[in-house]
């Protein structure tokens, strides 16, 4: 997808989004920038759900989708 110039704020926003809607566990360790595998997995889950290109990394389309107004219930199986 289109290249995204990640800011620290974007990283925090995206991690919070994945925690809220894709059950990303709160772990210390590498941030988005270093592509920690757990985060790649959750990003891929989200991209798959929304029919985005499944890159496992935070691109502009994924960021744009994260910023859309939405329901607060987690997506897919996570909500159970």
């Amino acid at each position, binding site marked *: *997808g*289109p290249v995204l110039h990640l800011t620290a704020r974007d990283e925090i926003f995206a991690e919070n989004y994945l925690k*809220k*809607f894709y059950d990303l566990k709160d772990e210390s360790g590498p941030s988005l920038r270093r592509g920690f595998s757990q985060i790649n997995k959750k990003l891929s889950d989200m991209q798959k*759900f*929304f*029919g*985005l*290109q*499944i890159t496992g990394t935070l691109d502009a*389309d994924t960021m744009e*989708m994260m*910023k*859309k*107004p*939405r*329901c*607060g*219930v987690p*997506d*897919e*199986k996570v*909500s*159970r």
Partner: protein
Amino acid sequence: FATFGPNFKWQTNSLTYRIENYTPDMSQSEVDDSIERALDVWAKVTPLRFTRIYSGTADIMISFGRLSHGDFYPFDGPDGTLAHAFAPGPGIGGDAHFDDDETFTFRSYSGYVLFLVAAHEFGHSLGLTHSNDPGALMYPIYSYTKPSDFRLPQDDINGIQSLYGPNPDTDPDTDGKDPEPPTTPNACDSNMVLDAVATLRGEMLFFKDRFMWRVYPQTTPQQTYITNLWPNAPERIDAAYESQESGNVFLFKGRQVWAFRGYDLVQGYPKAITKFGLPSTVKKIDAALYDVESRKTLFFVGSSYYSYDEFSKKMDDGFPKSVDETFSGLTGRVTAAVQSNGFTYIYSGPYMFEYRLSSGTFFRLLGNNYFLPC
């Protein structure tokens, strides 16, 4: 569609709801009406029946709150999360919470229509989780629809009826007269006949019913409502093209044309299609195509086509011509048209004919999926 699972459904069809407080954005009667109609969306297609109570604990407790509001899921201020609801069950089960940092509205485009948000949340209150069908009510992203135009999509009907079955009380007189529930066009349907195809600054746009797919080179097509990009745009359009002269995208429906520059409707539109010099006898156009080389726009009407000079803004003399005079082998009705990489693509039904316009040479017969991957 998706559900919380077979254990997360109400064991009775008679449910109670209570509106605990109100948002200052709307009158109480507007809130009452929005909530009632949102529950009715689900009652219409199931045996479920909802009774309002004004005190005590109801199955579905409805409240407006901000930030931390008494459960473990604080809201986040304006935009972002609009509301949430809990799966069927005792206590907080079934309850719906609305973020009062949002601006809720009765029907207008500015703000979030409470009826739409509530109908979605009550889907959760009854046992549905999110659908990944972008046309479904249970899709997690908010999309504006005029409340009077709202009809529960087939995907949501399938979901809720998988839990509770159909409405046993459908009236035989009106049964079957209700308009078909809307379905979401599927790019994998090889028989799909697109309404229109256009470019938009390097993207390709494929229109069908209320939806469009946006395709960037080497990316996955994004399916969305047309009104998500252009809120004033018509649905089920007849034709579309991007003028490289003006940079506008024109959408056609019936005798009208809408012009968009970026996300905005150009001042003074919609206009009549006669503005291009088309005769007043033309009720609609079937397809439109901007030719980069000649800077002409071709309008296809039935088995004929007109040529419009974008530079002089006049219809060219000697038209209409018969389509098969220029496009050899094209006998069916033209349903869409677009240019890409110097080639001209004329859609007729689910097929796409590839031509070199300057020579009229026909190259290949292709399918929809040539540009719009499944």
